[in-house]
């Protein structure tokens, strides 16, 4: 019962890789966007805010299909990327990472934005009077103080990316070894006769990963908060 088969390992490792890449690429973008939304007023801000949250409220199948239309081989962006850079997303694990990254993005941005908003702007002002230009104020004051939120966002994003199913299967299908993540493997297994035990094993694995992520983030957040509150 607890013997994990090579196919299942493949799906588990692929899921971890897809979610890790999605989180790591989305984090810098998420921090930049969270800062913009938290600290700047500009034309079209509410539109940008809505766009970021769109994957949260759209049916995942719709997001997946839109990705297929845009980043597919014949899609506007996908065709151009393939012709000029040889980068292909359709039916590749990179496409799974793209889908997961986009689906996880709103969950990643939100805690980061809240924690940047919570940073005392008077400290940023003080840093300015000490000679720090705005980008150094961000790197030396704002970002370190917002770190617990960044970590929380990364964990939430990672958890979402690991569990993503609808957009991924629509965009890159369910190819074992290439795009079959834990979720799509479970989906395939429960549709096969005698697949139940294997499906259950993967269910246990996803629970373990999710719990580990939660405990880990809690630990990080507590350490960071302690460090930041001057004790």
């Amino acid at each position, binding site marked *: 019962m607890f013997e994990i088969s090579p196919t299942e390992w493949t799906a588990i490792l692929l899921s971890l890789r897809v979610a890790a890449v999605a989180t790591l690429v989305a984090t810098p973008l998420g921090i930049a966007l969270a800062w913009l939304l938290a600290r700047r007023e500009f034309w079209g801000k509410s539109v940008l805010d809505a766009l970021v949250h769109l994957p949260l409220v759209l049916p995942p199948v719709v997001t997946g299909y839109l990705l297929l239309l845009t980043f597919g081989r014949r899609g506007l962006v996908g065709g151009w990327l393939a012709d000029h850079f040889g980068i292909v997303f359709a039916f590749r694990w990179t496409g799974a990472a793209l889908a997961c990254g986009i689906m996880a993005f709103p969950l990643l941005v939100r805690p980061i934005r809240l924690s940047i908003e919570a940073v005392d702007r008077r400290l940023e002002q003080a840093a300015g009077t000490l000679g*720090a230009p705005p980008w150094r104020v961000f790197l030396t004051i704002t970002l370190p103080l917002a770190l617990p939120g960044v970590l929380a966002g990364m964990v939430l994003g990672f958890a979402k990316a690991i569990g993503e199913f609808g957009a991924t299967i629509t965009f890159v299908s369910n190819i074992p070894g290439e795009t079959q993540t834990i979720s799509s493997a479970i989906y395939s297994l429960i549709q096969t006769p005698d697949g139940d035990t294997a499906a259950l094993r993967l269910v246990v694995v996803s629970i373990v990963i999710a719990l580990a992520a939660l405990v880990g983030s809690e630990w990080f957040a507590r350490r960071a908060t302690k460090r930041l509150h001057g004790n």
Partner: protein
Amino acid sequence: MLRVEVSRQLGEFSIEACFANEGRVTGLFGASGAGKTSLINMIAGLLRPDRGIIAIDGEVLDDTAAGLHIPPHRRRIGYVFQDARLFPHLDIRQNLDYGRRMNRLAEDPALEARVTDLLDIGGLLDRRPGRLSGGERQRVALGRALLAQPRLLLLDEPMGSLDEERKVEILPYLVRLRDEANVPMVYVSHDAGEMRQLATQVVMLRRGRVVAFGGTEVLPGT
């Protein structure tokens, strides 16, 4: 020398002020709400005047007619806030060193030693701001501003958030700072006693206007 000639509307309230500092410590004196903090925020570059000129040692920092506004980080003007504003994620040593790093100044152990001695904060270097008393925090904030090697130091009621006992503790340091640090200062307070002890020149503000200017004899109760 600092020259200020500014006006700024803030809601219902307006500031119109014109003065120049020549002495070592210019006191900005007035009741709360007289516009003292807004005025030094303009000198620091944190608030832009609607109209006017701010210049220091002949260098123009704000000139609204010419559309000129030098941002705070390029003014080399130190600012000690009422609420110290130490960086909570850095220890005291790193807090003190922040301005030097941001201005890319060479390390100067002699200056560091002089400032830490002057303010008596040598024993706090490895602590975090959260573990300091209000008076200690304010002394570190003074040291942090000085070590950025500013050409002018603004002090916004640095004793305002301290109780009487702590004030007595800080005042001698401010006097030493005035006599030994060799940086001109603008000192904001609503306390005539403090002003008399520290200022060499007084600008009296009332409802955003300069109503008196001169030596400490313009202070009430003299």
